[in-house]
Structures are given as structure tokens and as C-alpha cells.
């Protein structure tokens, strides 16, 4: 092997070490591509690497950083303008967040000790509950008719392809008509988890629930939002829960900060890949919906989500209190867009609610009007 090929091979190995799926044929294509391009400059090697090693757009900045460190020895380089910017939005009101974070840090000790006690006491029971939830989820989610067809014994259209095979093998005799019918598939499940300071007590439970959902449902997507929007579905696909949660935790940058629910949900909707996931899905937002400032954007985001979703639900831990009524301006504004406004204070309540999503229920506005 020529000596010049060694750094190229080394780059492939480096990427594999950091979890990029690089097949041997991609490495050989990479080397061929470099040869084809000359290479006349380092830019050619970079272009060849991007085209043949095909890093996922979400990990493009990571890929660039590895490229810089491997070929230039620059360990701190991160290239701007990557596609990852579509998944996160930055907070413009940073000053406000600092203030809010400061307020929370004062009561942090008390909060975290309470969390510790709760999770120690309920851990095993929660574990069993989540296991049961994971098992039941794929069959419990609301279903829709797919455009794919499956073989059936009754109520379907004639399956000419299979029937003809039967006719030929039985010398022209068809014992019974062979039919196909449109398949029924579970709807997508989309969980949007608020990780702001005011939800601190619940985020650990919500992430466990999200992990069980990703493991149990055919198609589930999980996002966290606070001041940014972060997609953590890929991390939660790891079967081992502690590993998955550790990886998800590392991806989220805005733990326990402020909330910009309206702008983050609008950012979610403005990325076609994400908003198309919301289409026809059962969407559950786990948040207290305590929007600071103006709620016009939140209202617009909720209306848009509701227009796309099969069912849009808000699970708020505040509803655990029997005195809770949706009286804040933000909640009043978004209530007409919601199909459900339910208690999100306990794992038991939440798992039962998600498993009941296929069952019809009166709109949230009707229920809460009756209550108040």
C-alpha cells in the first residue's frame, strides 16, 4: 500500500472509533475519490471524505472536527455552517435565563434532595411499570391504515399475483379466492420534553419514559426543549437504559435553564424533517407550559402542531394538584388547540395516559370547562 494512503485509512479508523458507521467499501471509495481529484489541495480531500464517507447531517460538525484534528492536528476546530444548526435554536434573551437559573440555584439543594428520595423509593416499581409500558405500547398506540397491503383470508381485494401462482400450481383450479387488504400500522408517537428549571423534578422520570417509548414503539421521536431544541431519539435507541440516558444527557445543553416554549416549538415546525414527523402522529408535550413573556408564538405553534397531529396532548405536572385550573393566559390561549390536558406529575399516570391514546376522549377545552 502506498505510504500516502495511510492517513486516509487512519481517518476511517478514527471515525469508526467515534461511532461513525464506515464500511470498508466506503474507505476504498474515499481513496479512489482522492486519487480522482488529484488531490490538488486539502479541500479536495475534505470534499472526497464528505461525499464518500457520508456523515449524517446531524453529526456533520463532529465529522469536521475529527477531520481538522486528524489532518491538521487542530483539536479545537469546529467548522461553522453545519446542518446541525437546524436542530437547535439559540436563546436571544440570555440575560433573562441567567437570572432564572440564579433563582433556581438558590433552591437547588432542597430540590435535588427531594428528587433523590423519590427516585430511591419508587425505582423498582417504576422499573416494572416501564417494562409493562414498553411491552404494551406498540399495540396500544392509535392505528391508521397504511398504503401497504397484507394477505388476508376475508374482506379484501383479489390478489391476482398470488391467485395466478395458485392457478398454475393447481392446474387451473382455485380452491378459494386469495385476498389482500391494506395493512393497519400504529401511528407515530412524538414526545416533546420540557427540560427547563421549573420541570427539574420530573425530567429524570420523563427521560426514562421516553427511553421505554423508543424501545417499545415502532416509530417514536423524542425531543427536549428549554431554550434550545434537541433531538435525542438516536441516543435513546441504545437498549441499556443508563447508557442511553447518559448519552442523551450529554446531547442536551440547556438542562434546568429557562423556557422558550413558543420559539422552540416553532423551530421544530420549521425543520421539514421534524414537522413531517408530527403529521398524523400522537404528540405528547410534557411541560408545565409556563411561558415567560408573550404567548403569541406558543399559541401559533400549538395551532400548527394541532393541525398536523392526530392527537395533541399536554401533560403538565401542575395538574397533579386537584386545585389546578388552566387559568394562566398561555394555557387559556392554547387550550382550544389541545385534545388533552392531563396530569403529568407521575409515571403511573403518564404511562396509563399514553397507553390510552387510541381511545377517543372529549376535547380538553370541554373537560376543563366542565371542571371549572
Amino acid at each position, binding site marked *: 500500500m502506498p505510504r500516502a494512503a495511510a492517513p486516509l485509512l487512519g481517518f476511517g479508523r478514527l471515525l469508526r472509533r467515534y461511532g461513525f458507521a464506515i464500511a470498508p467499501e466506503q474507505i476504498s471509495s474515499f481513496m479512489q475519490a482522492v486519487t480522482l481529484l488529484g488531490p490538488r489541495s486539502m479541500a479536495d480531500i475534505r470534499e472526497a471524505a464528505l*461525499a464518500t464517507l457520508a456523515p449524517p447531517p446531524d453529526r456533520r460538525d463532529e465529522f469536521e472536527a475529527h477531520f481538522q484534528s486528524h489532518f491538521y492536528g487542530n483539536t479545537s476546530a469546529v467548522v461553522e455552517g453545519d446542518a446541525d444548526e437546524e436542530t437547535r435554536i439559540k436563546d436571544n434573551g440570555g440575560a433573562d435565563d441567567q437570572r432564572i437559573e440564579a433563582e433556581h440555584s438558590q433552591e437547588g439543594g432542597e430540590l435535588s434532595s427531594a428528587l433523590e428520595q423519590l427516585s430511591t423509593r419508587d425505582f423498582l416499581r417504576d422499573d416494572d411499570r416501564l417494562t409493562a409500558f414498553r411491552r404494551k405500547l406498540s399495540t396500544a398506540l392509535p392505528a391508521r391504515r397504511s398504503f*401497504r397491503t397484507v394477505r388476508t383470508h376475508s374482506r379484501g381485494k383479489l390478489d391476482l399475483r398470488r391467485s395466478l401462482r395458485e392457478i398454475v400450481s393447481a392446474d387451473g383450479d382455485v380452491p378459494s379466492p386469495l385476498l389482500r387488504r391494506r395493512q393497519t400500522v400504529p401511528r407515530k408517537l412524538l414526545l416533546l420534553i420540557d427540560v427547563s428549571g421549573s420541570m427539574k423534578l420530573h425530567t429524570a422520570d420523563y427521560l426514562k419514559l421516553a427511553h421505554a417509548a423508543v424501545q417499545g414503539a415502532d416509530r417514536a421521536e423524542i425531543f427536549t426543549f428549554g431554550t434550545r431544541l434537541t433531538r435525542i431519539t438516536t441516543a435513546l435507541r441504545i437498549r441499556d437504559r443508563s447508557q442511553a440516558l447518559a448519552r442523551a444527557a450529554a446531547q442536551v445543553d440547556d438542562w434546568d435553564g429557562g423556557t422558550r416554549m413558543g420559539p422552540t416549538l416553532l423551530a421544530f415546525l*420549521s425543520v*421539514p*424533517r421534524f414537522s413531517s414527523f408530527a403529521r398524523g402522529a400522537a404528540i405528547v408535550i410534557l411541560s408545565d407550559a409556563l411561558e415567560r413573556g408573550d404567548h403569541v408564538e406558543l399559541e401559533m405553534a400549538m395551532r400548527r402542531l394541532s393541525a398536523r397531529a392526530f392527537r395533541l396532548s399536554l401533560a403538565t405536572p401542575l395538574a397533579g394538584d386537584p386545585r389546578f385550573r388552566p387559568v394562566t393566559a398561555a394555557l387559556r390561549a392554547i387550550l382550544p388547540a389541545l385534545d388533552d390536558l392531563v396530569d403529568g406529575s407521575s409515571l403511573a399516570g403518564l404511562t396509563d395516559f399514553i397507553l390510552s391514546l387510541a381511545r377517543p376522549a372529549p376535547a380538553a377545552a370541554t373537560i376543563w370547562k366542565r371542571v371549572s
Partner: protein
Amino acid sequence: MSGVNAETVATSPEAVAQHLAASRYLADDSLATAIFLAIRLGKPLLLEGAPGVGKTEAAKAIAELLGRDLVRLQCYEGIDAAHALYEWNYQRQLLAIRHAGEHEIDIYDDRFLIARPLLQVLRAPEQRVLLVDEIDRSDHEFEALLLEFLSDFQISIPERGTIRAAAQPIVILTSNRTRELAEALRRRCVYHWIGYPDAEREAAIIMLRAGDVAEATARAVAAAVQTIRARPLAKPPGIAEAVEWANAATILEKGGSPWPEAFRRAIGVLIKDEEDLSYIAPELGRIVDEALV
């Protein structure tokens, strides 16, 4: 359509970019490199990006520069082998069986085989350009079905055996990333992510594509569209919408509307979502004024 030899066109990324420009498609260095590599390595080209950035147009431009026929396979949920590869003409087979009586008959003969786009491409005596559009809309099963085709340019028909390409086609796949594609598919392809162009390139594209739009108008439209795309819209405008906006504003201006007003009145061809329109409306005047400076 009689074509040129792909390797004589793709001598370098710059040559590819020049040929594409002659087909009225402006490609940046990265895209030209990806197209060059796909042609020279003989691999499919996977183009991903937001809707409206010109993925399908790129495929059309590649077909034009090579002087080849473009065969397009539009993907959708539920698409399967019968829609993409081949289908047997069952009615004709049944009739043939009935007519044959006691005689032997091969019901898997060519005359009963309906070739769908992928088989058409393989059987064509000349090299074709195949566009598999919006592969992300199809199911995982269909993606798996494509793997044999994409790696070896062949398909297996159980009744007939394997059919190999007479002339290896140039394959372009596009995806809007509405879902993640399988690793197996990605690694068989040369990959390129098409982003929105910067203002300068977009102005050049508008100049090239729109009818008689002045350069200043194209620049203003490109600048305003960049600002509008930065807002959290449900449907951010693509390049085609920007071109339409420039065209529509020019027509209105010629009809007597002064400049900022012409842009504002033509906004319906740029933003096609009612909520987006009401969201951007209060800011529109300022955005247009700033772009016109």
C-alpha cells in the same frame, strides 16, 4: 436522445460545474465534486436537503449535460416492486392460459412482463439517468429492495433470474430527510447535502432562471429571501419560490406598482402558507426596504 460519454464530460469538478451552468444549473464546488465523483466512481448519487433547494433540478441538469433520457421514479408510502421494478400482466396471462388449451405455454414470457422504471433503465440499450425522487417517502422495505439495484445495477426476478444493466445507468436519489435513510443505502452512494445557497449565488440563480429580471431586483430578492428563511416558518421558501417572486414583482412593477409595493403585493408566490404570511406580514415592509438598499 443521443448522449455523450459521461467520462468525457466529467474530466474534473470544474468541468462538471461549467457543463451544468450551460444547462442553466449553478452548482457550487461541493456539489460539482460530488457529481464528478458519482459519475467517475460509477456510484449512485444521494442528494439530501430541505425542499426547494434544487435536488430534482440537479438530476434534470445532469441528464441534460450528458444528453441522456431521464427516467423518474417518484416514491411514496406503499411503493413496492410492482410499481418500481416489474409487474406481470395477469389478465393477459390468464387469457393466454385459456387460449393455449392443452398446449404448453410460458406465462413468464417477455410479452407478459410490464417493465417499471428500474427495469426499463436496466433494459435500455443506451445509458439512462434514473431519478429516484423523495426516497424518504417510501418504506424501509422498499429501500431494502433497492439495495441490489444500487450496488450491482441488477435485479432478480424469481421467475426469470437476474437481469443486469445493458449500460450502467447514472442514478440520482433525492431525500428531504423526512426520515433517516438506512446506513446500507447511504454507504452505497456518493453523498451530498444541498443547503440553501448564499445570497450571491441565489441572485445569480434568479438571474439565470427568471425571465427579464434586473440584476438589482435579483439581488434584492435574494437578500430578502435570506432574511425570511431565517424566521421560524412552517414552509421556508425554496429557490423556485424566490425566482417566482422576482418574476412576479417585475411584472407588477411593469404594470405600474412602485418597487416596495410590488414586492409586498407579490408575496403570495413566495410564501404559500397562510399562517406564515400573517407571521411575516408585520415585518415584510422593513425586510423589503432593507433588501432594496
